[in-house]
C-alpha cells in the first residue's frame, strides 16, 4: 500500500515545516518496488533537519541502492505535531521515497549516534504500528537493526532491537542483507541465528545477562552454541569511496552542504573522547580521492559549501596541499570549505585563513579544561601560553568572535580548575579587545563531562547535579561584564545521558516507561520531559550515573570488543589519575590493542607506526 499524497496533504498544512515529510529531494533513489525483492528502510530517530545532515545514513543509502535486488528508502522522526497528526488520521509512519508504511519493509535500519534518541526509536516503531519489543515481533514483521556510536553499548535498547551492527557499516550491511535473503522465509529465530553468524552483528536475545546482588553485571553468556563471544567491532581496512550523489534537501536543514570524510579515527587519545577510542585506527583518504569526490559532489548537488569531515582536520597529513588545491580550483567559483575540529595551534589558524576567503565568522576552539594540569589528566595538552598566542593571532587576522568549548566535572577537577576557565576566558576577551575593542566577542559553551563506555573514563563518576550547578554558578559569577556569552548544559539532561550511556539491559524498562509517559526528542531542551524521566529513572540515577566503578567491575558492554583493550583503558585511567599525559600514538605505538586485533589487515592508509616489540 502506498499512502496517497492527497491523504498526506490533509496533514501537511497543519504542521510546522511540512517539507520534512514529503521527500522529493534531488538524488533520492526510487527503485521499482515490485521487482526489487529486498527492501530496507533507513531510519534516523531525530527530526529531518538533523537526520538529513547525517553522513552515516547517506553512506549506507548509497551502498544499499547500488546492490542488485536491494532498495533502500528513508524515514526520520516526525516532530510531535506530525506524530499527533499521523495518529489522529490513523496513518502509519512511512518512507519518504515512495510513501510506503515502514511495516512493509524487510529490514528497518536505525542509526543511533547518540543515546538521547532512544525514546524516539520507540516512538517510530509505535508510529509504524510495530510491536516495540523484539520478543513480540514475528517473522512477518520487519527486522529491526541498529548501529551507530551509541550502540557500542547496545544494552539499554537491547529489548527493542533485533540485531545490532557493532562498528563500521559499509561492508557488514551488505553481508546482513545477503544473509537475510537466504533465510527470509524462515522463523524469526532462524533469521536471527543467521544474522548472529555475521561478524560484528550482536543479537541480544542470544546472550543472557546475570547480575550480582549489588546490581552490577555478573556474567554475559551466549545461550546458543557457536555464537561469537565477545562480539568484535567491524572496521573497513580502507575507507570505501565516499558517496557523491548526496541528497539535496528541498528545505533548509542543519548542515546544508556537501561532506567528504577525509579521515577516520584519531591518534590523539583524549581520554574523555568516545569517538577517539571507538574509531581507531586512523585511516586517511588519499588526497586525489578527496579532490575527485569534491568535484563529483559539486557537479551532482550544486552545493556552495563542502565540509571536510574528520575528528581533527589539521591532523590530516595532506591538509595543507588539500586546502591549497581546493582554493586554486574553486576559489573563483565561490565554494566555501569548512574544516571542523581545528586544534589550538598556529597551523590551524593559517588553514582557516586560507579557506575563509576574507569571510570572518566565528572561530571555534575546544581547550576543554582551564589548567595545564587538568589538560594532562584528560590528555589534551595545550600549553597555556600557546593558547593565548593562537587566540591573539585569530583576533589579529580579523575574526571578532571566538567560540570556546569547556567541560566541567572532569575527573580530578578542583575548584581552581573551574576558576581557571574564567581566567582564561577573561584573558581571551582581553586579547580580543586589544584587536577589536568592544566588538570582540567570546562565546563560551560549558558542558558537563559525561563518562562514556570504552574510554579510559568509563570507571569515572558523573558529578552530582548540585556540583554541576555550583560550578556553573561559579563561572557565571566570574564572567560578568560585556563581550562574553556563556551557555551550559542542563543538569537533568546530562544525568539522563550519563545513565543511558553506561546503562545495562534493565534500563530498557525505564526507557519504555519514559516513552509511555510522553518522553520524546530528549536532546531538545524545549521537548525534554523532566517529569516523565524522573518517574522512570530517578531511583537508579545514582547507580548508573554517579558511581565510580571498581577496577574489576564487569561492565554491561564488556562483551563488545572495540579492538582497544580494557587493560589499556585501565592503564590510561591510572595515568590520568597520576596526571600523566600520553603522547600522540603517531610518535610511537602505545599498544592500545588495535594492531593486536586488526594488525593483520593493516595497509599504507593506516596512520599507525610499526608496533614496538613491547606492544606487538
Amino acid at each position, binding site marked *: 500500500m502506498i499512502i496517497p*499524497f492527497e491523504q498526506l*496533504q*490533509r496533514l*501537511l*498544512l497543519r504542521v510546522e515545516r*511540512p*517539507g520534512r*515529510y*514529503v*521527500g*522529493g*529531494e*534531488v538524488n533520492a533513489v526510487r527503485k521499482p518496488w515490485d521487482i526489487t525483492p529486498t527492501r530496507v528502510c533507513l531510519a534516523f530517530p531525530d527530526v529531518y533537519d538533523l537526520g538529513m545532515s547525517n553522513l552515516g545514513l547517506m553512506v549506507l543509502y548509497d551502498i544499499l541502492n547500488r546492490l542488485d535486488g536491494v532498495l533502500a528508502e528513508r524515514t526520520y522522526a516526525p516532530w510531535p505535531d506530525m506524530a499527533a497528526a499521523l495518529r489522529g488520521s490513523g496513518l502509519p509512519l512511512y518512507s519518504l521515497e515512495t510513501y510506503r508504511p515502514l511495516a512493509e519493509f524487510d529490514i528497518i535500519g536505525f542509526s543511533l549516534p547518540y543515546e538521547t534518541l532512544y525514546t524516539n526509536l520507540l516512538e517510530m516503531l509505535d508510529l509504524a504500528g510495530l510491536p516495540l519489543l523484539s520478543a513480540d515481533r514475528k517473522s512477518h514483521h520487519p527486522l529491526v537493526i541498529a548501529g551507530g556510536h551509541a550502540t557500542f553499548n547496545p544494552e539499554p535498547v537491547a529489548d527493542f532491537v533485533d540485531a545490532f551492527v557493532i562498528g563500521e557499516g559499509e561492508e557488514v550491511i551488505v553481508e546482513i542483507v545477503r544473509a537475510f535473503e537466504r533465510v527470509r522465509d524462515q522463523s524469526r529465530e532462524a533469521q536471527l541465528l543467521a544474522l548472529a553468524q555475521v561478524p560484528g552483528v550482536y543479537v541480544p536475545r542470544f546472550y543472557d545477562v546475570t547480575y550480582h546482588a549489588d546490581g552490577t553485571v555478573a556474567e554475559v553468556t551466549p545461550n546458543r552454541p557457536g555464537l561469537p563471544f565477545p562480539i568484535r567491532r567491524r572496521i573497513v581496512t580502507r575507507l570505501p569511496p565516499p558517496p557523491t550523489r548526496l541528497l*539535496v534537501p*528541498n*528545505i*533548509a536543514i542543519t548542515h*546544508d552542504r556537501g561532506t567528504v570524510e577525509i579521515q577516520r579515527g584519531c591518534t590523539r587519545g583524549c581520554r574523555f573522547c568516545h569517538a577517539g577510542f571507538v574509531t581507531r585506527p586512523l585511516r586517511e583518504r588519499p588526497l586525489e580521492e578527496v579532490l575527485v569526490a569534491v568535484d563529483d559532489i*559539486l*557537479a*551532482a*548537488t*550544486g*552545493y*556552495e559549501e563542502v565540509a571536510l569531515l574528520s575528528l581533527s582536520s589539521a591532523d590530516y597529513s595532506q591538509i595543507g596541499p588539500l586546502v591549497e588545491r581546493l582554493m586554486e580550483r574553486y576559489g573563483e567559483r*565561490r565554494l566555501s570549505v569548512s574544516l571542523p575540529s581545528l586544534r589550538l595551534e598556529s597551523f590551524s589558524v593559517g588553514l582557516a585563513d586560507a579557506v575563509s576567503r*576574507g*569571510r570572518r565568522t566565528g572561530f571555534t576552539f575546544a581547550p576543554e579544561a582551564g589548567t595545564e594540569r587538568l589538560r594532562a589528566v584528560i590528555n589534551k595538552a595545550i600549553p597555556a601560553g600557546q593558547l593565548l598566542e593562537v587566540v591573539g593571532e585569530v583576533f589579529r587576522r580579523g575574526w571578532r568572535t571566538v567560540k570556546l568549548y569547556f567541560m566541567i566535572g572532569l575527573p580530578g577537577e578542583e575548584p581552581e580548575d573551574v576558576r581557571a576557565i574564567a581566567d582564561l576566558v577573561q584573558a581571551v576577551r582581553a586579547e580580543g579587545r586589544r584587536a577589536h575593542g568592544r566588538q570582540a566577542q567570546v562565546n563560551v559553551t560549558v558542558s558537563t563531562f559525561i563518562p562514556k563506555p570504552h574510554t579510559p573514563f568509563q570507571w569515572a563518576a558523573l558529578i552530582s547535579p548540585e556540583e554541576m550547578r555550583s560550578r556553573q554558578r561559579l563561572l557565571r559569577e566570574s564572567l560578568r561584564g560585556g563581550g562574553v556569552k556563556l551557555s551550559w548544559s542542563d543538569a537533568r539532561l546530562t544525568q539522563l545521558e550519563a545513565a543511558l550511556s553506561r546503562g545495562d539491559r534493565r534500563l530498557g524498562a525505564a526507557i519504555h516507561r519514559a516513552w509511555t509517559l510522553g518522553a520524546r526528542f530528549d536532546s531538545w531542551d524545549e521537548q525534554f520531559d523532566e517529569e516523565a524521566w524522573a518517574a522512570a529513572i530517578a531511583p537508579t540515577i545514582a547507580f548508573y550515573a554517579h558511581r565510580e566503578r571498581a577496577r574489576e567491575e564487569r561492565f554491561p558492554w564488556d562483551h563488545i570488543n572495540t579492538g582497544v583493550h580494557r587493560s589499556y583503558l585501565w592503564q590510561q585511567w591510572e595515568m590520568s589519575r597520576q596526571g600523566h599525559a600520553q603522547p600522540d600514538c603517531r610518535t610511537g605505538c602505545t599498544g592500545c590493542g588495535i594492531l593486536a586485533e586488526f594488525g593483520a589487515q593493516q595497509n599504507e592508509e593506516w596512520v599507525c607506526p610499526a608496533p614496538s616489540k613491547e606492544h606487538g
Partner: protein
Amino acid sequence: MSQRLRLLYAVDGPIRYASHLDQMRIWERAVRRAGLPLVYSAGFTPHPQIHVAAALPVGVAGRAEWLDLWLEQPVDPTVARAALSPQLPAGLTIRDAFPADPAEPALPAQVRAAEYHVSVETTEPVAEVRRRVESLLAAESLPRQRRGRSYDLRPLLQRLWVEGEGEGTVRLGMVLSAREGATGRPDEVLDALGLAGGFFQIERRALRLAAEGR
C-alpha cells in the same frame, strides 16, 4: 555581456511545501548543476541573481510563475531550458524560457495581481457560499487581523466567484492584489467566507504584471 533570462514555470507536488527562500535555493543549486553561468552580487556573501516575481505561500501550487535569471554570458534560451529542466526536483517544470529586456524593472516590482483557484471541503450548500461571496464583495471594508496586525482585506480583493461544486466541495476563483506591501492571501479570503475550517487546496493560476495592465 550579461543576459536576463526569463522563465515561466509551474510548482506542484512535494516542492510546494518548500518555502519561498527554500525555492530560491533550489533554483540556485539547479542552475549550478546545469552549469549555467549565474551572476552573483559582489561582497563577502555573494547573492545569486535570481529574481522570483512573487513568493508562493507554503503549500500553494503555481501554474504560471515567473522568474529572471541573470547569466554572465548570453545562452540560447532553448539550450538553457534543456540544461536546466533535468536538474529540477520533481514538481518544478519549466514551461517557457526567453530573453527579457535588461532595462525592465525587477519582476517583483511589475507584479500587480494574482489569480487563485481554491477547492475547499464544506458542508455548506453552494447557494449559501454564493450568498457569502456576494456579501463579501458588497462590503466596504473587511477589517482583519493577521499575525497581530490589523488590515483591511477588501481593497485587496479584486474579484471573487464560485466556479463550481463537487461532492462536499466548492471551487472558488479569486483575483487578489499582489503589490509589494499590498498582497492578499487566499486563505484569508477563505477565512472571511467562514470556509477555512475545511481541507482546501490552492493553486495560483496566473500573475498579472504591470505591462499587461489590470
